[in-house]
């Protein structure tokens, strides 16, 4: 397909979005990222039945925690796509990049690096 997507998107492979827990998301922010999105399979089509639905709930919880911390919950998103939707993958990567760029750098990262 030779599709392009923004180079700032780094992929962390997991066997299923059900593998992703709150701590994994928070630690990612600690490492200095500006946003995280989970790309799970389409709802109702989880190979492990409920992995993507569990991930969806965890994303909601992570958003609440990030709001509490003051980073902004909208820096985390859950998206769904099938493995045959390469076009959609690239589209989401662009959309998410634009969204996070509009939000600006993570306030945690900005302060860690001493302003700016």
């Amino acid at each position, binding site marked *: 397909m030779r599709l392009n997507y923004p180079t700032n998107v780094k992929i962390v492979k997991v066997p299923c979005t059900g593998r992703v827990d709150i701590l994994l998301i*928070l630690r990612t922010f*600690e490492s200095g990222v500006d946003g995280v999105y989970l790309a799970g399979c389409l709802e109702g089509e989880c190979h492990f039945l409920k992995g993507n639905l569990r991930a969806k709930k965890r994303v909601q919880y992570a958003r609440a925690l990030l709001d509490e*911390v003051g980073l902004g919950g909208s820096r985390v998103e859950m998206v769904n796509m099938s493995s045959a939707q390469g076009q959609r993958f690239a589209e989401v990567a662009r959309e998410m990049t634009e969204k996070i760029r509009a939000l600006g750098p993570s*306030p945690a990262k900005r302060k860690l690096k001493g302003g700016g």
Partner: protein
Amino acid sequence: MIVGNRKTLEEILGMIAPYKKVLLLGCNECVTVCASGGEREVGVLASELKLWHAKEGREIEIREHTLERQCDHEYIDQIKPFVDNYDVILSMACGAGVQYVAEKYRTKPVLPAVNTTFLGVTLEQGVWSERCQGCGTCILDQTGGICPIARCAKSLLNGPCGGSSNGKCEVDKELDCGWQLIIDRLKELNQLDKYEDNIPIKDWTTSRDGGPRRRVREDLKL
């Protein structure tokens, strides 16, 4: 198990504001099972605190450590080698654990990160419900195995009251009437005759009214 609820980040931040080095202490028992103060919750709180401090441009050092129990001194002793490296202990145990750690390290401030709420059970993954108030005189034999002290909003010994409607309590439409549950269970047990017996006035001296309680087993003492 003892069920707790983690305090809000805002409240915790307020408590730890004067300190720079925090020993965040989890407990592997009840609060792990009810997901309010185990190793995982220690990790989440530590991460939240680090992110908040980074955002504010403030420094904080957090050590995460989870003990097998915070209600037994042999486990609490395990933090002795490094406890003095920290300004404060932020405990994620129940109130008993927080206090016992505070008793052991008398010059170290020990703060609670969890509100201890009740003795209860896991209804389903992520849902817990109160079952016991530790009154010290169990009457479950008379009430079909359902406690009127814990399950009736008024802790009536002879119920239900007029607030019971269609099996629900007037306090909350979602809440089962404790006495309806008792009657239903006595029927199932074919022990409805027990419902005819009036339960006498309870001696509350075995509960909190008798002051803090203690239990001694001389044969177990070393």
